[in-house]
Protein backbone atom coordinates (compact mmCIF):
# COMPACT_ATOMS: atom_id res chain seq x y z
CA UNK A 1 0.00 0.00 0.00
CA UNK A 2 1.35 3.39 -0.80
CA UNK A 3 1.61 5.97 1.88
CA UNK A 4 -1.17 8.14 0.49
CA UNK A 5 -3.56 5.22 0.40
CA UNK A 6 -2.54 4.21 3.89
CA UNK A 7 -3.19 7.68 5.23
CA UNK A 8 -6.44 8.09 3.34
CA UNK A 9 -7.68 4.81 4.67
CA UNK A 10 -6.93 5.27 8.33
CA UNK A 11 -6.71 9.00 8.94
CA UNK A 12 -10.33 9.17 10.11
CA UNK A 13 -9.67 6.61 12.80
CA UNK A 14 -6.54 8.42 13.92
CA UNK A 15 -8.55 11.60 14.24
CA UNK A 16 -11.09 9.80 16.38
CA UNK A 17 -8.39 8.42 18.61
CA UNK A 18 -6.86 11.86 18.95
CA UNK A 19 -10.25 13.27 19.85
CA UNK A 20 -10.77 10.58 22.46
CA UNK A 21 -7.40 11.35 24.03
CA UNK A 22 -8.25 15.04 24.18
CA UNK A 23 -11.56 14.16 25.73
CA UNK A 24 -10.01 12.16 28.56
CA UNK A 25 -7.82 15.10 29.41
CA UNK A 26 -10.80 17.39 29.98
CA UNK A 27 -11.94 18.13 33.52
CA UNK A 28 -14.62 15.79 34.70
CA UNK A 29 -17.50 18.22 34.40
CA UNK A 30 -16.74 19.17 30.82
CA UNK A 31 -16.18 15.56 29.94
CA UNK A 32 -19.74 14.74 30.83
CA UNK A 33 -21.00 17.41 28.49
CA UNK A 34 -19.02 16.45 25.41
CA UNK A 35 -19.56 13.39 23.32
CA UNK A 36 -16.76 10.87 22.84
CA UNK A 37 -15.94 9.56 19.38
CA UNK A 38 -16.15 6.01 20.71
CA UNK A 39 -16.85 4.21 23.94
CA UNK A 40 -14.06 3.89 26.46
CA UNK A 41 -14.07 0.09 26.26
CA UNK A 42 -13.14 0.37 22.63
CA UNK A 43 -9.98 2.18 23.53
CA UNK A 44 -7.71 -0.81 24.02
CA UNK A 45 -8.36 -2.45 20.65
CA UNK A 46 -8.05 0.92 18.97
CA UNK A 47 -4.77 1.51 20.71
CA UNK A 48 -3.43 -1.83 19.57
CA UNK A 49 -4.54 -1.01 16.07
CA UNK A 50 -2.54 2.22 16.21
CA UNK A 51 0.50 0.32 17.44
CA UNK A 52 0.19 -2.14 14.61
CA UNK A 53 -0.12 0.63 12.06
CA UNK A 54 2.89 2.34 13.56
CA UNK A 55 4.95 -0.80 13.15
CA UNK A 56 3.69 -1.14 9.60
CA UNK A 57 4.48 2.44 8.75
CA UNK A 58 7.98 2.07 10.13
CA UNK A 59 8.68 -1.15 8.34
CA UNK A 60 7.55 0.36 5.06
CA UNK A 61 9.67 3.47 5.55
CA UNK A 62 6.70 5.78 5.27
CA UNK A 63 7.61 9.38 5.75
CA UNK A 64 8.08 10.86 9.18
CA UNK A 65 4.87 12.86 8.92
CA UNK A 66 2.88 9.64 9.30
CA UNK A 67 5.18 7.78 11.63
CA UNK A 68 5.60 10.73 13.97
CA UNK A 69 1.88 11.19 14.21
CA UNK A 70 1.27 7.52 14.87
CA UNK A 71 4.08 7.47 17.36
CA UNK A 72 2.58 10.36 19.25
CA UNK A 73 -0.84 8.72 19.25
CA UNK A 74 0.67 5.48 20.46
CA UNK A 75 2.56 7.17 23.25
CA UNK A 76 -0.42 9.09 24.49
CA UNK A 77 -2.54 5.99 24.17
CA UNK A 78 0.05 4.10 26.17
CA UNK A 79 -0.11 6.70 28.92
CA UNK A 80 -3.89 6.66 28.93
CA UNK A 81 -4.05 2.87 28.98
CA UNK A 82 -1.38 2.21 31.56
CA UNK A 83 -1.85 5.35 33.58
CA UNK A 84 -3.26 5.54 37.05
CA UNK A 85 -6.85 4.45 37.25
CA UNK A 86 -9.09 7.08 38.71
CA UNK A 87 -10.79 7.03 42.06
CA UNK A 88 -7.66 7.10 44.20
CA UNK A 89 -9.47 7.83 47.44
CA UNK A 90 -12.34 5.43 46.93
CA UNK A 91 -9.90 2.72 45.96
CA UNK A 92 -7.96 3.44 49.13
CA UNK A 93 -11.10 3.06 51.24
CA UNK A 94 -11.92 -0.18 49.46
CA UNK A 95 -8.40 -1.31 50.27
CA UNK A 96 -8.88 -0.43 53.93
CA UNK A 97 -12.07 -2.49 53.95
CA UNK A 98 -10.19 -5.73 53.53
CA UNK A 99 -7.09 -5.75 51.38
CA UNK A 100 -5.11 -3.99 54.08
CA UNK A 101 -5.80 -6.65 56.69
CA UNK A 102 -5.06 -9.36 54.13
CA UNK A 103 -1.69 -7.87 53.34
CA UNK A 104 -0.88 -7.48 57.01
CA UNK A 105 -1.69 -11.15 57.57
CA UNK A 106 0.42 -12.12 54.58
CA UNK A 107 3.42 -10.33 56.10
CA UNK A 108 2.97 -11.95 59.48
CA UNK A 109 6.61 -12.92 59.75
CA UNK A 110 8.08 -9.42 59.71
CA UNK A 111 5.10 -8.28 61.73
CA UNK A 112 5.98 -10.79 64.41
CA UNK A 113 9.59 -9.62 64.38
CA UNK A 114 8.53 -5.98 64.62
CA UNK A 115 6.11 -6.76 67.42
CA UNK A 116 8.86 -8.48 69.38
CA UNK A 117 11.27 -5.61 68.72
CA UNK A 118 8.70 -3.27 70.18
CA UNK A 119 7.13 -5.31 72.95
CA UNK A 120 10.26 -6.84 74.47
CA UNK A 121 11.98 -3.55 75.41
CA UNK A 122 8.60 -2.18 76.40
CA UNK A 123 7.94 -4.95 78.89
CA UNK A 124 11.53 -5.16 80.09
CA UNK A 125 11.92 -1.46 80.83
CA UNK A 126 8.51 -1.38 82.44
CA UNK A 127 9.48 -4.18 84.78
CA UNK A 128 12.86 -2.59 85.41
CA UNK A 129 11.49 0.83 86.18
CA UNK A 130 8.69 -0.54 88.33
CA UNK A 131 11.20 -2.57 90.31
CA UNK A 132 13.79 0.17 90.45
CA UNK A 133 12.25 3.64 89.98
CA UNK A 134 15.63 5.31 89.58
CA UNK A 135 16.24 3.28 86.47
CA UNK A 136 13.98 5.69 84.62
CA UNK A 137 16.56 8.43 85.08
CA UNK A 138 19.18 6.29 83.40
CA UNK A 139 16.98 5.74 80.39
CA UNK A 140 15.57 9.23 79.92
CA UNK A 141 16.73 12.69 80.94
CA UNK A 142 15.23 14.08 84.08
CA UNK A 143 13.50 17.08 82.54
CA UNK A 144 11.69 14.89 80.06
CA UNK A 145 10.44 12.71 82.89
CA UNK A 146 9.38 15.79 84.83
CA UNK A 147 7.37 16.88 81.82
CA UNK A 148 5.38 13.66 81.91
CA UNK A 149 4.97 14.10 85.63
CA UNK A 150 3.15 17.38 85.05
CA UNK A 151 1.19 15.98 82.09
CA UNK A 152 -0.43 13.26 84.13
CA UNK A 153 -0.19 14.91 87.51
CA UNK A 154 -3.28 16.15 89.31
CA UNK A 155 -2.43 19.78 88.46
CA UNK A 156 -2.91 19.37 84.70
CA UNK A 157 -6.11 20.95 83.37
CA UNK A 158 -6.67 18.18 80.92
CA UNK A 159 -5.16 14.77 80.70
CA UNK A 160 -1.93 14.25 78.83
CA UNK A 161 -1.06 17.92 78.43
CA UNK A 162 1.04 20.39 80.23
CA UNK A 163 -0.82 23.01 82.09
CA UNK A 164 -2.49 25.64 79.98
CA UNK A 165 -1.19 24.29 76.73
CA UNK A 166 -4.29 22.35 75.91
CA UNK A 167 -6.22 22.88 72.77
CA UNK A 168 -7.86 19.90 71.12
CA UNK A 169 -7.47 21.01 67.55
CA UNK A 170 -3.87 22.04 68.05
CA UNK A 171 -3.06 18.77 69.70
CA UNK A 172 -4.79 16.89 66.88
CA UNK A 173 -2.70 18.75 64.36
CA UNK A 174 0.41 18.09 66.38
CA UNK A 175 -0.29 14.38 66.63
CA UNK A 176 -0.91 14.13 62.91
CA UNK A 177 2.22 16.07 62.09
CA UNK A 178 4.44 14.34 64.56
CA UNK A 179 3.21 10.77 64.84
CA UNK A 180 2.57 10.01 61.20
CA UNK A 181 5.83 11.65 60.26
CA UNK A 182 7.61 9.43 62.77
CA UNK A 183 5.83 6.38 61.43
CA UNK A 184 6.87 7.20 57.88
CA UNK A 185 10.43 7.68 59.07
CA UNK A 186 10.28 4.33 60.83
CA UNK A 187 9.35 2.79 57.50
CA UNK A 188 11.97 4.65 55.50
CA UNK A 189 14.60 3.68 58.05
CA UNK A 190 14.22 0.16 56.73
CA UNK A 191 16.29 1.20 53.76
CA UNK A 192 19.31 1.37 56.06
CA UNK A 193 19.48 -2.42 56.05
CA UNK A 194 16.49 -2.46 58.38
CA UNK A 195 18.49 -0.83 61.15
CA UNK A 196 16.52 2.41 61.09
CA UNK A 197 13.24 0.63 61.57
CA UNK A 198 14.64 -1.67 64.18
CA UNK A 199 16.17 1.19 66.13
CA UNK A 200 12.91 3.15 65.96
CA UNK A 201 10.94 0.18 67.26
CA UNK A 202 13.39 -0.53 70.07
CA UNK A 203 13.55 3.12 71.03
CA UNK A 204 9.79 3.53 71.05
CA UNK A 205 9.35 0.39 73.11
CA UNK A 206 11.94 1.52 75.64
CA UNK A 207 10.59 5.05 75.79
CA UNK A 208 6.99 4.07 76.27
CA UNK A 209 7.77 1.35 78.77
CA UNK A 210 9.82 3.78 80.83
CA UNK A 211 7.22 6.54 80.75
CA UNK A 212 4.39 4.21 81.64
CA UNK A 213 6.23 2.68 84.59
CA UNK A 214 7.51 6.06 85.74
CA UNK A 215 4.09 7.67 85.70
CA UNK A 216 2.62 4.70 87.52
CA UNK A 217 5.45 4.90 90.05
CA UNK A 218 4.45 8.47 90.74
CA UNK A 219 0.92 7.35 91.45
CA UNK A 220 -0.74 8.80 88.40
CA UNK A 221 -1.80 5.41 87.06
CA UNK A 222 -5.51 6.21 86.84
CA UNK A 223 -5.03 9.45 84.97
CA UNK A 224 -2.40 7.94 82.69
CA UNK A 225 -4.46 4.95 81.65
CA UNK A 226 -7.53 7.07 81.30
CA UNK A 227 -5.60 9.10 78.74
CA UNK A 228 -3.82 6.42 76.76
CA UNK A 229 -6.46 3.69 76.77
CA UNK A 230 -8.46 5.10 73.89
CA UNK A 231 -5.85 5.63 71.21
CA UNK A 232 -3.13 3.19 72.19
CA UNK A 233 -4.56 0.41 70.07
CA UNK A 234 -4.45 2.35 66.82
CA UNK A 235 -1.21 4.12 67.55
CA UNK A 236 0.94 1.24 68.76
CA UNK A 237 -0.33 -1.12 66.08
CA UNK A 238 0.36 1.42 63.36
CA UNK A 239 3.89 2.02 64.63
CA UNK A 240 4.57 -1.69 64.65
CA UNK A 241 3.09 -2.04 61.18
CA UNK A 242 5.35 0.67 59.80
CA UNK A 243 8.30 -0.92 61.54
CA UNK A 244 7.38 -4.27 60.02
CA UNK A 245 7.20 -2.71 56.57
CA UNK A 246 10.61 -1.17 57.13
CA UNK A 247 12.02 -4.49 58.30
CA UNK A 248 10.74 -6.07 55.11
CA UNK A 249 12.72 -3.54 53.08
CA UNK A 250 15.79 -4.18 55.18
CA UNK A 251 15.37 -7.90 54.75
CA UNK A 252 15.17 -7.51 50.99
CA UNK A 253 18.42 -5.59 51.13
CA UNK A 254 20.19 -8.06 53.38
CA UNK A 255 18.86 -11.31 51.95
CA UNK A 256 17.66 -10.69 48.42
CA UNK A 257 17.46 -14.39 47.60
CA UNK A 258 17.49 -15.16 43.92
CA UNK A 259 16.95 -11.58 42.86
CA UNK A 260 19.32 -8.72 42.49
CA UNK A 261 19.18 -6.42 45.50
CA UNK A 262 17.33 -3.70 43.65
CA UNK A 263 14.76 -6.13 42.27
CA UNK A 264 14.23 -7.61 45.72
CA UNK A 265 13.81 -4.12 47.16
CA UNK A 266 11.28 -3.25 44.49
CA UNK A 267 9.23 -6.32 45.23
CA UNK A 268 9.38 -5.75 48.96
CA UNK A 269 8.35 -2.12 48.59
CA UNK A 270 5.46 -3.02 46.34
CA UNK A 271 4.20 -5.54 48.86
CA UNK A 272 4.38 -3.25 51.90
CA UNK A 273 3.62 0.26 50.66
CA UNK A 274 -0.10 -0.42 51.10
CA UNK A 275 0.54 -1.41 54.70
CA UNK A 276 2.29 1.88 55.33
CA UNK A 277 -0.60 3.80 53.81
CA UNK A 278 -3.05 1.80 55.91
CA UNK A 279 -1.00 2.46 59.02
CA UNK A 280 -1.10 6.16 58.22
CA UNK A 281 -4.89 5.96 58.10
CA UNK A 282 -4.83 4.23 61.49
CA UNK A 283 -2.67 7.00 62.85
CA UNK A 284 -5.15 9.62 61.65
CA UNK A 285 -7.80 7.79 63.67
CA UNK A 286 -5.41 7.59 66.60
CA UNK A 287 -4.69 11.31 66.39
CA UNK A 288 -8.39 12.10 66.33
CA UNK A 289 -9.01 9.97 69.40
CA UNK A 290 -5.95 11.33 71.16
CA UNK A 291 -6.87 14.89 70.36
CA UNK A 292 -10.58 14.86 71.09
CA UNK A 293 -11.47 11.89 73.26
CA UNK A 294 -8.48 10.92 75.37
CA UNK A 295 -8.09 14.20 77.31
CA UNK A 296 -11.73 14.17 78.50
CA UNK A 297 -12.01 13.52 82.22
CA UNK A 298 -14.66 10.84 82.25
CA UNK A 299 -15.16 7.87 84.61
CA UNK A 300 -12.17 5.55 84.36
CA UNK A 301 -14.20 2.37 83.64
CA UNK A 302 -15.82 4.04 80.66
CA UNK A 303 -12.50 5.10 79.22
CA UNK A 304 -10.90 1.74 79.84
CA UNK A 305 -13.93 0.06 78.29
CA UNK A 306 -13.64 2.17 75.16
CA UNK A 307 -9.92 1.41 75.07
CA UNK A 308 -10.54 -2.31 75.32
CA UNK A 309 -13.20 -2.07 72.66
CA UNK A 310 -10.73 -0.32 70.35
CA UNK A 311 -8.15 -3.03 70.92
CA UNK A 312 -10.69 -5.69 70.06
CA UNK A 313 -11.67 -3.68 67.01
CA UNK A 314 -8.10 -3.33 65.73
CA UNK A 315 -7.04 -6.90 66.39
CA UNK A 316 -10.31 -8.30 65.12
CA UNK A 317 -10.01 -6.19 62.00
CA UNK A 318 -6.45 -7.31 61.30
CA UNK A 319 -7.31 -10.94 61.96
CA UNK A 320 -10.59 -11.26 60.14
CA UNK A 321 -11.20 -8.47 57.67
CA UNK A 322 -11.13 -9.49 54.06
CA UNK A 323 -11.17 -13.20 54.86
CA UNK A 324 -14.29 -13.84 52.86
CA UNK A 325 -12.99 -12.59 49.55
CA UNK A 326 -9.47 -13.73 50.20
CA UNK A 327 -8.05 -15.72 47.32
Amino acid at each position, binding site marked *: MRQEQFEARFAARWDEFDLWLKHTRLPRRQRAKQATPFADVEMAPR*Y*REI*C*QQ*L*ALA*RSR*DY*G*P*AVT*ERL*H*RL*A*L*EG*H*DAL*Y*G*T*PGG*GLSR*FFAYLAGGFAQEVRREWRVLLAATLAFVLPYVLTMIAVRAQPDFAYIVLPADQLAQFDTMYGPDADALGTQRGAR*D*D*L*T*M*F*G*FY*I*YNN*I*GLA*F*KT*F*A*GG*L*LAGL*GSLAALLYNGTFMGTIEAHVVNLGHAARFYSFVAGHSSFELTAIVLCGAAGLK*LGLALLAPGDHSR*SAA*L*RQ*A*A*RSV*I*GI*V*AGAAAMLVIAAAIE*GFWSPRTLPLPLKLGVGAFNWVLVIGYLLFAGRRNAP
Partner: protein
Amino acid sequence: MLDTVREVSTPELIALRLHCAGPVPRALAWLIDLAIRGGIYLAIAIPLSAFGKGGTGLVLVAVFLIEWFYPVLFEVLGRGATPGKRALGLVVLNGDGSPVGWGPSLTRNLLRVADFLPFLYALGLISMLMSREFRRLGDIVADTIVTYRRSASPLPIAPEAPHWRTKAPLSRTAQRAVLAFAERAPRLSPERAEELAEQAPMLTDDALGQQAVERLYGLAHHLTGRER
Protein backbone atom coordinates in the same frame (compact mmCIF):
# COMPACT_ATOMS: atom_id res chain seq x y z
CA MET B 1 27.73 4.71 22.76
CA LEU B 2 27.28 6.66 25.93
CA ASP B 3 23.90 8.22 26.32
CA THR B 4 21.44 9.09 29.03
CA VAL B 5 18.60 7.15 27.45
CA ARG B 6 16.73 4.23 28.91
CA GLU B 7 15.07 2.19 26.22
CA VAL B 8 12.00 0.25 27.17
CA SER B 9 9.33 -1.24 25.05
CA THR B 10 5.68 -1.36 25.83
CA PRO B 11 3.67 -4.59 25.71
CA GLU B 12 2.72 -3.56 22.17
CA LEU B 13 6.41 -3.40 21.30
CA ILE B 14 6.62 0.32 20.78
CA ALA B 15 10.09 1.35 21.72
CA LEU B 16 10.12 4.18 24.23
CA ARG B 17 13.24 6.19 24.71
CA LEU B 18 13.19 7.77 28.13
CA HIS B 19 15.70 10.53 28.60
CA CYS B 20 16.79 10.23 32.22
CA ALA B 21 17.31 13.40 34.15
CA GLY B 22 20.34 13.82 36.34
CA PRO B 23 21.11 15.49 39.65
CA VAL B 24 21.52 19.07 38.47
CA PRO B 25 18.08 19.69 36.95
CA ARG B 26 16.50 17.66 39.73
CA ALA B 27 18.19 19.71 42.41
CA LEU B 28 16.93 22.88 40.74
CA ALA B 29 13.42 21.44 40.52
CA TRP B 30 13.60 20.60 44.19
CA LEU B 31 14.66 24.15 44.98
CA ILE B 32 11.70 25.55 43.08
CA ASP B 33 9.37 23.17 44.88
CA LEU B 34 10.93 24.17 48.17
CA ALA B 35 10.20 27.80 47.42
CA ILE B 36 6.64 26.98 46.42
CA ARG B 37 6.08 24.94 49.56
CA GLY B 38 7.46 27.74 51.66
CA GLY B 39 5.07 30.12 49.93
CA ILE B 40 2.16 27.81 50.64
CA TYR B 41 3.13 27.56 54.30
CA LEU B 42 3.13 31.30 54.58
CA ALA B 43 -0.12 31.61 52.70
CA ILE B 44 -1.75 29.12 55.04
CA ALA B 45 -0.14 30.20 58.27
CA ILE B 46 -0.88 33.90 58.11
CA PRO B 47 -4.67 33.72 57.85
CA LEU B 48 -4.96 30.66 60.11
CA SER B 49 -2.91 32.18 62.89
CA ALA B 50 -5.73 34.65 63.22
CA PHE B 51 -7.88 31.82 64.54
CA GLY B 52 -5.69 31.44 67.57
CA LYS B 53 -4.86 28.08 69.03
CA GLY B 54 -7.11 25.98 66.84
CA GLY B 55 -5.44 27.54 63.85
CA THR B 56 -2.09 26.17 64.95
CA GLY B 57 -3.55 22.69 64.77
CA LEU B 58 -4.80 23.23 61.26
CA VAL B 59 -1.45 24.67 60.25
CA LEU B 60 0.25 21.59 61.61
CA VAL B 61 -2.06 19.33 59.64
CA ALA B 62 -1.42 21.36 56.53
CA VAL B 63 2.31 21.23 57.09
CA PHE B 64 2.11 17.49 57.51
CA LEU B 65 0.11 17.05 54.33
CA ILE B 66 2.36 19.29 52.28
CA GLU B 67 5.51 17.86 53.71
CA TRP B 68 4.63 14.31 52.81
CA PHE B 69 2.05 14.43 50.07
CA TYR B 70 2.90 17.50 48.01
CA PRO B 71 5.04 15.49 45.57
CA VAL B 72 2.71 12.50 45.64
CA LEU B 73 -0.37 14.47 44.74
CA PHE B 74 1.34 16.36 41.96
CA GLU B 75 3.04 13.29 40.57
CA VAL B 76 -0.12 11.21 40.41
CA LEU B 77 -2.71 13.83 39.59
CA GLY B 78 -0.52 16.37 37.86
CA ARG B 79 0.72 14.10 35.08
CA GLY B 80 3.89 13.09 36.78
CA ALA B 81 5.42 16.37 37.80
CA THR B 82 5.49 18.78 40.69
CA PRO B 83 5.54 22.44 39.67
CA GLY B 84 9.29 22.50 40.09
CA LYS B 85 9.75 19.49 37.86
CA ARG B 86 7.35 20.94 35.36
CA ALA B 87 9.41 24.11 35.23
CA LEU B 88 12.50 22.07 34.41
CA GLY B 89 10.58 19.90 31.91
CA LEU B 90 10.88 16.80 34.08
CA VAL B 91 8.36 14.05 34.67
CA VAL B 92 8.30 11.00 36.93
CA LEU B 93 7.53 7.72 35.20
CA ASN B 94 7.50 4.10 36.16
CA GLY B 95 10.51 2.12 35.05
CA ASP B 96 8.51 0.76 32.13
CA GLY B 97 7.62 4.21 30.89
CA SER B 98 4.04 4.27 32.11
CA PRO B 99 2.69 7.14 34.21
CA VAL B 100 3.46 6.78 37.87
CA GLY B 101 0.67 5.60 40.19
CA TRP B 102 -0.16 5.98 43.87
CA GLY B 103 1.93 3.09 45.14
CA PRO B 104 5.24 3.89 43.44
CA SER B 105 4.83 7.62 44.02
CA LEU B 106 4.10 7.08 47.70
CA THR B 107 7.06 4.73 47.97
CA ARG B 108 9.56 7.05 46.35
CA ASN B 109 8.41 10.04 48.35
CA LEU B 110 8.24 8.33 51.74
CA LEU B 111 11.74 7.08 51.13
CA ARG B 112 12.91 10.65 50.73
CA VAL B 113 13.69 10.25 54.42
CA ALA B 114 16.40 7.76 53.59
CA ASP B 115 17.68 9.81 50.68
CA PHE B 116 17.82 12.85 52.91
CA LEU B 117 20.36 11.27 55.22
CA PRO B 118 22.73 12.28 56.61
CA PHE B 119 22.28 15.86 55.48
CA LEU B 120 20.11 17.43 52.79
CA TYR B 121 19.85 14.48 50.38
CA ALA B 122 23.52 13.61 50.52
CA LEU B 123 22.72 9.90 50.16
CA GLY B 124 20.30 10.59 47.33
CA LEU B 125 22.96 12.66 45.57
CA ILE B 126 25.54 9.92 45.85
CA SER B 127 23.02 7.38 44.63
CA MET B 128 22.13 9.56 41.65
CA LEU B 129 25.76 10.17 40.73
CA MET B 130 26.46 6.46 40.86
CA SER B 131 23.40 5.13 39.09
CA ARG B 132 23.26 4.85 35.32
CA GLU B 133 19.78 6.25 35.26
CA PHE B 134 20.34 8.81 37.97
CA ARG B 135 18.01 7.22 40.45
CA ARG B 136 17.98 8.08 44.09
CA LEU B 137 17.24 5.34 46.62
CA GLY B 138 13.52 6.03 46.55
CA ASP B 139 13.53 5.68 42.77
CA ILE B 140 15.39 2.40 42.95
CA VAL B 141 12.96 0.95 45.45
CA ALA B 142 9.82 2.25 43.77
CA ASP B 143 11.17 1.43 40.29
CA THR B 144 10.52 4.93 39.08
CA ILE B 145 12.59 7.17 36.91
CA VAL B 146 12.74 10.91 36.41
CA THR B 147 12.84 11.78 32.72
CA TYR B 148 12.55 14.78 30.50
CA ARG B 149 9.06 15.35 29.30
CA ARG B 150 8.56 13.88 25.87
CA SER B 151 8.10 16.69 23.45
CA ALA B 152 5.56 15.92 20.79
CA SER B 153 7.63 18.26 18.74
CA PRO B 154 6.06 19.61 15.60
CA LEU B 155 8.39 19.00 12.74
CA PRO B 156 10.61 21.91 11.88
CA ILE B 157 9.70 24.17 9.07
CA ALA B 158 12.63 24.59 6.78
CA PRO B 159 12.83 27.63 4.53
CA GLU B 160 10.79 27.49 1.36
CA ALA B 161 12.52 25.54 -1.35
CA PRO B 162 11.74 24.27 -4.82
CA HIS B 163 10.31 20.82 -5.11
CA TRP B 164 12.84 18.02 -5.26
CA ARG B 165 12.53 14.25 -5.22
CA THR B 166 15.02 11.47 -5.59
CA LYS B 167 14.43 8.73 -8.06
CA ALA B 168 14.78 5.85 -5.67
CA PRO B 169 12.67 5.69 -2.54
CA LEU B 170 14.54 6.83 0.55
CA SER B 171 15.62 4.50 3.30
CA ARG B 172 14.66 5.38 6.83
CA THR B 173 18.16 6.56 7.65
CA ALA B 174 18.09 8.82 4.63
CA GLN B 175 14.72 10.21 5.64
CA ARG B 176 16.01 10.92 9.11
CA ALA B 177 19.16 12.50 7.73
CA VAL B 178 17.25 14.81 5.41
CA LEU B 179 14.85 15.89 8.12
CA ALA B 180 17.63 16.42 10.62
CA PHE B 181 19.40 18.53 8.09
CA ALA B 182 16.32 20.59 7.36
CA GLU B 183 15.86 21.12 11.06
CA ARG B 184 19.40 22.10 11.82
CA ALA B 185 20.74 23.77 8.72
CA PRO B 186 18.94 27.11 9.16
CA ARG B 187 20.79 27.59 12.40
CA LEU B 188 24.20 26.71 11.02
CA SER B 189 26.47 29.09 9.26
CA PRO B 190 25.78 28.99 5.52
CA GLU B 191 29.26 27.67 4.83
CA ARG B 192 28.83 24.82 7.19
CA ALA B 193 25.39 24.04 5.80
CA GLU B 194 26.75 23.87 2.31
CA GLU B 195 29.66 21.76 3.42
CA LEU B 196 27.25 19.35 5.06
CA ALA B 197 24.86 19.21 2.13
CA GLU B 198 27.71 18.37 -0.17
CA GLN B 199 28.34 15.28 1.88
CA ALA B 200 25.08 13.80 0.63
CA PRO B 201 25.56 13.65 -3.12
CA MET B 202 23.29 10.61 -3.45
CA LEU B 203 20.38 12.66 -2.17
CA THR B 204 21.04 15.80 -4.21
CA ASP B 205 22.24 14.29 -7.46
CA ASP B 206 25.71 15.65 -6.84
CA ALA B 207 24.58 19.24 -6.52
CA LEU B 208 27.02 21.70 -4.98
CA GLY B 209 26.85 24.64 -2.64
CA GLN B 210 23.58 26.42 -2.07
CA GLN B 211 21.82 24.19 -4.60
CA ALA B 212 22.59 21.11 -2.57
CA VAL B 213 21.13 22.78 0.51
CA GLU B 214 18.02 23.79 -1.40
CA ARG B 215 17.55 20.33 -2.77
CA LEU B 216 17.73 18.81 0.65
CA TYR B 217 15.18 21.31 1.90
CA GLY B 218 12.95 20.39 -1.03
CA LEU B 219 13.30 16.76 -0.19
CA ALA B 220 12.40 17.49 3.41
CA HIS B 221 9.29 19.33 2.35
CA HIS B 222 8.31 16.40 0.26
CA LEU B 223 8.86 14.02 3.14
CA THR B 224 6.91 16.03 5.67
CA GLY B 225 4.10 16.44 3.21
CA ARG B 226 4.22 20.21 3.41
CA GLU B 227 4.53 20.65 -0.31
CA ARG B 228 0.89 19.74 -0.71
